[in-house]
């Protein structure tokens, strides 16, 4: 019950009205940052870090972490409304969130995303409160081989969706991997596929590609059908939240599974983006509605959002207890701790009781506050869909351009985004799936470098991937995940060859 007492103490620290004020300010800024594509949580926190310089460490971290929670909540908004992921971890949210919006169910999708996020954060915070030291040790067991296994598992639990031509699926996936490899090779320091161009040095950022493929591509597709968004008929009523809450308990299993995936990925630290993909893949595979995923399923919004927020929150755990950041944003927060004169690591819980428990208490409170803030904006955001296309389309394109620029402060990235927009349009028309491309782009780099780090460790011996029970289990699980759908799909196809023509696009 030690933890409970400490938590009560933490709430005492929070009682300062100033801290509450900072919390709301942080949430508000965070949602804004989350909504703007490109300006991610890590950038947002880094940008505002110097502002907290003159605050007390407790107030500083409360405000910065609130920005982070706000960004985690806010990323879903543009994913659902315009198919533009505001944050990398809300890419998977577009798969079902956007189709829901197109069917006029934007309000429900938003309410589901926010509630799922809240649930994920809540589970992760409980973990942080009661099990932090125990679980921190677990994170230390992860070396390069284990990291590779985790990326492999993410990949394997996600691929095999959709019914497009397998050759096109593979081609799209390979394109993603190839784009991920452009730029400097982290293992040898060599330049790859830059062809002497300065602009290619930075490689292709996942977010720039996604803003183009999904956001701009979608606007071009929409244009074919005339000047309108399909979601125009969205019903807007505050009661939509209550309706969703009535429906959500049905999906308790998905919610819990996603929260577990998220916590695991946040701690190990795989990060929120792989967590959201893995959780979506697992939900699709194990849900009774799995076949309908991609066409606007509530569960398909719930799964990635719950996992992303759980991962984002639990990423603080290794940061606080070990001083290793579980996500880019946590890395920036870690820098913040040092700036405020705090030393993250195992002693932080002992030496800085006020700080740690004030922070943990603030996570509870700020997620409640965040939920209230974002839920109350649902009608407002859903109303955006009613703005005539010829007004909202240029504004969206402008925001996409700003977003693409802010990722790396590079003018060239805006053009890259536009090219990706055209590619996205052509690919959708020719049934090249976008999801595998995007997943390969986000995981390719990390998977390759952890694989090669593992190979360096073992001097080129593949047995390192079965060297201990932990890595062996994950790799085996991954392979099982990979082959199971291949087999079931093959059987499916044998039974009814006609169905392969339906080509249910995952990202449409």
């Amino acid at each position: 019950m030690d933890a409970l007492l400490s938590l009560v103490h933490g709430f005492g620290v929070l009682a300062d009205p100033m801290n509450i004020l900072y919390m709301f300010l942080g949430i508000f800024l965070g949602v804004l940052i989350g909504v703007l594509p490109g300006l991610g949580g890590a950038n947002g926190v880094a940008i505002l870090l110097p502002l907290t310089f003159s605050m007390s460490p407790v107030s500083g971290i409360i405000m910065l972490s609130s920005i982070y929670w706000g960004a985690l909540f806010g990323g879903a908004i543009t994913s659902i409304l315009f198919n533009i992921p505001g944050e990398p971890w809300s890419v998977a949210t577009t798969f079902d969130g956007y189709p829901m919006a197109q069917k006029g169910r934007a309000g429900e999708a938003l309410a589901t995303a926010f509630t799922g996020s809240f649930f994920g954060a809540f589970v992760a915070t409980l973990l942080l409160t009661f099990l932090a030291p125990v679980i921190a040790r677990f994170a230390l067991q992860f070396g390069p081989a284990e990291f590779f296994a985790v990326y492999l598992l993410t990949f394997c639990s996600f691929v095999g969706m959709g019914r497009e031509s397998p050759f096109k699926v593979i081609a799209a996936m390979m394109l993603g991997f190839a784009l991920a490899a452009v730029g400097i090779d982290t293992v040898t320091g060599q330049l790859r596929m830059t062809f002497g161009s300065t602009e290619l040095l930075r490689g292709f950022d996942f977010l720039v590609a996604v803003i183009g493929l999904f956001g701009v591509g979608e606007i071009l597709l929409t244009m074919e059908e005339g000047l309108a968004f399909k979601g125009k008929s969205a019903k807007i009523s505050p009661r939509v939240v209550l309706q969703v809450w009535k429906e959500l308990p049905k999906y308790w299993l998905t919610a819990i599974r996603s929260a577990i995936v998220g916590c695991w990925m946040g701690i190990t630290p795989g990060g929120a983006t792989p967590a959201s993909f893995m959780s979506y893949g697992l939900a699709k595979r194990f849900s009774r509605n799995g076949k309908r995923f991609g066409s606007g399923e509530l569960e398909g919004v719930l799964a990635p959002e719950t996992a992303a927020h759980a991962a984002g929150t639990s990423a603080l755990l290794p940061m606080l207890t070990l001083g290793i950041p579980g996500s880019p944003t946590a890395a920036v927060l870690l820098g913040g701790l040092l700036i405020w004169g705090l030393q993250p690591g195992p002693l932080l819980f002992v030496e800085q009781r006020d700080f740690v428990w004030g922070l943990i208490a603030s996570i509870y409170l700020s997620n409640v506050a965040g939920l209230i803030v974002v839920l109350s904006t649902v009608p407002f955001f859903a109303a955006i869909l009613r703005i005539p296309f010829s007004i909202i389309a240029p504004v969206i394109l402008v925001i996409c351009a700003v977003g693409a620029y802010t990722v790396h402060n590079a003018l060239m990235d805006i053009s890259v985004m536009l090219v990706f927009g055209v590619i996205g349009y052509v690919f959708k028309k020719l049934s090249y799936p976008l999801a595998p491309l995007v997943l390969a782009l986000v995981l390719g780099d990390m998977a390759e470098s952890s694989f090669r780090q593992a190979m360096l460790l073992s001097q080129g011996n593949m047995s390192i991937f079965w060297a201990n029970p932990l890595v062996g289990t994950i790799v085996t699980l991954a392979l099982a995940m990979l082959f199971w759908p291949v087999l079931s799909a093959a059987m499916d196809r044998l039974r009814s060859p006609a169905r392969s023509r339906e080509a249910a696009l995952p990202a449409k």
Partner: protein
Amino acid sequence: MAHQADRSEHTVSKRVMDLVVAGVFMALATLIMWDNWRIGARWEDDGPGAGYFPFRIGAIMFVVSAITFVLKLRDRTVEDGPFVERTQLRSVMQVLIPTVVFVISIGFLGIYVASAIFIAFFMAWLGKYPAAKIAPIAILVPLALFLMFEVWFLVPLPKGPLEAALGY
């Protein structure tokens, strides 16, 4: 990247477009394989070299795209609609061309001025709105972005002569 050139030809069939895209994929794959072979695509003593994976990625991309190419070449039986209808293409171009101009002009005018012009043009051309409705949106959106990025978040976005004249 190469798709843009093909777009000027109106209403190509889906099959031709498929062939073109598969061809582009194959060309790209060749480029990928070439560059990665150059930097070392072999398995070194201590694991894969820098070009090991990308080279194989290029190879797989080439093979699957070649298969798609051949399949499409031989497959004449399937009903083959146009890739895009002429009227559809026109509406797509109505957005795409102004956007291209917008993106190019960012480099010269800065993002704020370019955005204002782009929004105003779009609203006037496609929405046929009166100037009284256009002006507030075309001015307020870039202004809001300016306040948010330059003032609040201290993130400089591309600026042009106007901002320079105002001292930014």
